[in-house]
């Protein structure tokens, strides 16, 4: 494995002194994660991404720092932190790489969250501490080959066989699937009602083939979940919530984290481009002294600042349990597109250097192509806002 010797010089922009809106504890959470990313992620991530390999060796560190379930109560192994802390953790990890953030998002919001919110006390005790410690890794199976934006059409089903449940179907594009110990699988019962089930690796008929040749999230493992007459114990059903609202509740939590995460990727691209533009001399002066490059950089910091405000406010609303799904959609949609545009512009600021692995920009740019698609596509989030303000759903 190659380790990059290049120092990670990242300095976070805070143009509007938004740090004043954070508590000392928030800042400590952020600086701890930033330090961890600089020490553990930055030196190795490019090499893993180039080789399209998930850096499993980072799992121990992610668990140790507390990136798995930071807002889950301490009684279940979490840290019991607030939503802004969770957001800051996601921001800092995605500043390193969206793939690593994806692993942490999935584990926290899509695996621990449903067990915590929809599971029995026995399920919480059995799984949550191991998940927080990273001894158990999980994945979340909602998307199917024929049902992406329209998960309600899912064809994965389970039948009550008396002493167990019989699960059949296939899920696709599942982050962490290739190495996960357990999967939260969304499937319909005989009446067509959606429930979450905990499928465990090793159950007969359950396989997780890996999806290869991705140009995006290359340092994240993606795969399928295939269920061929899998016998799932009845105690593995999450009983406390059913219907599509159950998986969507998890997605709210994950999308909220992504809205913060995207700022991390954007800040890294901006910071890299700004430093490069000040140092790169063409026509006898730094390219940062030209109006065209200034336009790019000035627009980047403007957009980052707006996104920071949006997420901070959303975090306050979530802490007060007042944030709506539609509000979360707006932040996810805005921030991911903002980050993707900044990545594209920043890449150009670096000229040819921008296409190499010497700099993180192109990796972020390619990663963000997944981020703008998963957890609700850019289009779908717009339709959610549209439906929310007009009262007319325009999905169908």
């Amino acid at each position, binding site marked *: 494995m190659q380790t990059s010797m290049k120092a990670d010089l990242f300095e976070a922009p805070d143009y509007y002194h938004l740090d004043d809106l954070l508590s*000392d*504890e928030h*800042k*400590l959470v952020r600086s701890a994660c930033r330090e961890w990313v600089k020490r553990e992620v930055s030196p190795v991530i490019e090499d893993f991404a180039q080789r399209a390999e998930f850096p499993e060796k980072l799992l121990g560190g992610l668990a140790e720092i507390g990136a798995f379930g*930071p807002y889950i109560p301490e009684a279940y192994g979490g*840290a*019991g932190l607030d939503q802004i802390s969770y957001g800051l953790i996601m921001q800092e990890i995605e500043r390193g790489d969206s793939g690593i953030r994806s692993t942490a998002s999935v584990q926290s919001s899509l695996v621990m969250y449903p067990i915590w919110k929809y599971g029995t006390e026995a399920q919480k005790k059995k799984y949550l501490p191991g998940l927080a410690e990273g001894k158990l890794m999980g994945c979340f199976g909602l998307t199917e080959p024929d049902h992406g934006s329209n998960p309600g059409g899912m064809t994965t089903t389970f039948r009550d066989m008396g002493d167990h449940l019989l699960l059949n179907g296939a899920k696709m594009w599942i982050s962490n699937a290739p190495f996960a110990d357990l999967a939260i699988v969304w499937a319909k019962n005989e009446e067509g009602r959606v429930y979450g089930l905990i499928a465990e690796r090793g159950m007969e008929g359950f396989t997780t083939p890996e999806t290869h040749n991705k140009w995006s999230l290359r340092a994240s493992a993606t795969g399928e979940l295939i269920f061929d007459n899998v016998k799932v114990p009845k105690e593995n059903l999450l009983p406390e919530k059913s219907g599509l609202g159950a998986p969507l509740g998890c997605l709210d939590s994950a999308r909220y984290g992504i809205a913060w995460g995207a700022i991390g990727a954007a800040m890294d691209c901006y910071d890299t481009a700004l430093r490069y533009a000040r140092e790169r001399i063409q026509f006898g002066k730094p390219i940062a002294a030209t109006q065209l490059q200034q336009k790019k950089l000035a627009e980047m910091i403007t957009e980052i600042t707006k996104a920071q405000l949006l997420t901070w406010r959303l975090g306050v609303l979530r802490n007060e349990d007042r944030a709506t799904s539609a509000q979360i959609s707006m932040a996810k949609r805005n921030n991911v597109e903002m980050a993707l545009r900044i990545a594209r512009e920043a890449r150009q600021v670096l000229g040819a250097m921008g296409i190499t692995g010497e700099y993180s920009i192109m990796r972020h740019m390619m990663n963000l192509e997944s981020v703008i698609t998963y957890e609700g596509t850019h289009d779908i989030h717009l339709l959610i806002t549209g439906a929310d303000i007009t009262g007319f759903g325009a999905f169908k």
Partner: protein
Amino acid sequence: MKILVCISHVPDTTSKINFADSDTRFDTNGVQFVINPNDEFGLTRAMWFKEKQGASVTVVNVGGPETEPTLRKALAIGADEAIRVNAQPEDGFFVASQLAKVVEDGGYDLVIAGRESIDYNGGMVPGMLASLTGANFINTCIGLEIEGSEATATREIDGGKETVKCALPLIIGGQKGLVEESDLRIPNMRGIMMARQKKLTVTEAAEAPGRTSVVKFEKPAPKGEVKLVSPDKLDELIDLLHNEAKVI
């Protein structure tokens, strides 16, 4: 064993330094503060004594309320409790006098301070503290072991190392080598949560007038422009060194 770690709250090494009030005051605007690196090595060594030998670890700072996040970070890393002596640190003697009172009140067996702080680089506090409290003192410590009431310390000396033994209570001026950079701990989320419940006691400063006062700070002269001379033009280089820089 009761350990006290003295923590100086200093600007991050990447901060841009400016002065205010006609160059008599350090301008803290926009500056990020961190645990003084020498103290962080000491704190990390103290955590080792806590985990391996059951020591209790208290951290102390002489400073205003703005230093509390730095103390909280030390608590999040694992220190058991913190003390802040509420006063602006005026000079080394003032700080050492305040710390002496904390040391006497707490009855510590081992006081770990840094060899020097990276802001004012006084390098005076640990020595003065030892002399005020009458404890043994070992400076520029790069290794420390404790067995019962005896300490074995390694010191850096010109061109080599020196190993010394001495009885507790002891004050050390520590530095890198006590632990390595890769041993430094990043607080984790559980630690940050637990730090919420740990005791941070604020005490008022004892009367101890400082003995020095700042007249003026100056920044180093800005670097001059760089001239690049290509390797095949050595004559030009010699000419520049001789006629322009006038160094040869």
